[in-house]
């Protein structure tokens, strides 16, 4: 049957909605290969239609299969693009190596371009009135208190606060910090809020 490999690929993408899987290079290659085979058969049969008119319908059927494969392939890439966007918002512009590994080279390039475009948009915000931009990855939750208590989950290193103080974030250390200055680290899983 036509286009079955590509369906497996899509089901895979649908299954894990909260994570991104390794880019399936091998399967994508096979699908493109299948398309070339169909195309070649069509070229041959299209030339033979003068003798055998009914071959024309066969050519059309294969053409539909080609369109179908193309649609599925694009849908696969597009669903990954959406996940990669989420990676930018949640991990920031630098991906941890184990996540970076899951993307193909050209996906990583897309990630970088997306990130650059986003950064230049955010920098432009409020420029007319003398702002140097606004970081939209912050202030994502309705504010509740100015300071919160946090537990550090990894050995992160030094963090310089807006008032100039420098604190050392090491695993299992506890801190009382301005919410505005630690919300990103919380989202990135480096700190955890203690209630």
């Amino acid at each position, binding site marked *: 049957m036509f286009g079955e490999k590509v369906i497996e690929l899509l089901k895979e993408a649908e299954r894990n909605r909260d994570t991104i899987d390794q880019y399936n290079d091998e399967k994508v290659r096979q699908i493109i290969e299948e398309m070339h085979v169909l195309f070649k058969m069509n070229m041959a049969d299209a030339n033979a239609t003068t003798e055998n008119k009914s071959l024309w319908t*066969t050519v059309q059927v294969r053409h539909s299969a080609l369109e*179908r494969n193309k649609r599925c392939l694009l849908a696969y890439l597009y669903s990954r693009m959406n996940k990669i966007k989420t990676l930018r918002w949640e991990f920031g512009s630098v991906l941890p190596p*184990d996540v970076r590994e899951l993307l193909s080279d050209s996906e990583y390039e897309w990630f970088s371009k997306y990130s650059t475009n986003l950064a230049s948009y955010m920098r432009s915000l409020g420029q007319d009135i003398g702002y140097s931009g606004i970081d939209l990855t912050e202030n994502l939750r309705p504010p509740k208190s100015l300071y919160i208590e946090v537990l550090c989950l990894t050995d992160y290193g030094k963090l310089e606060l807006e008032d100039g103080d420098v604190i050392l974030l090491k695993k299992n250390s506890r801190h009382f910090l301005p919410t505005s200055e630690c919300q990103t680290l919380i989202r990135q899983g480096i700190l955890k*809020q203690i209630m």
Partner: protein
Amino acid sequence: MGNQSNYLSISDILVTNEKVPCKFLHDLPKMGFLDPASTEDDLKTGTNVEIPLWLAESLYSRRPPLVSVDLPKIYKEAYREILNADACTVDLHKLGQHFYELGCYIAKHDIKGEVGNTLVNTFRQRFRMILSASASTDSISALQPLSDTERERTAGAASTEKALSTWLKRGDCPLSTANMVASHRKRKRAEMEML
């Protein structure tokens, strides 16, 4: 048109991958493989075979049509009668995972034009199943007879319910790790443990 049927929608691709019974009205050279029961190279006029909806639609839309599309059994009169009498007794998970979506595509092949009404009636009647499944304590058995989208809708309602009851019970909501970051951490931990 809504989002569900856009070109890049994976769920629409999966719906259009469902098989429907067709009868071939013309010979199709070299397409014998579409009929698993046949060993011939060519597909002969009059062959009845189940093929994916996307292919069926493409063959049907030729002038003249290359196939006639028959209704899958869940849309036939026998089931329509049951559905119209009491739709809530039917296990759509077993009989039609994509009951409504596939039904919307297939409705035009119903000469009597009754599939449309059955879809509307069924949807209306079964809405209360979603309502009770989303509030049910025994959610597994309440979910069982639901179609894919009904299940998704139930999950959506249940997560609203959960967010609301958490809000009612708790004071402030702690800031938390971003969704994808957390899922990737979890997956990484699981992988580490397997080593």
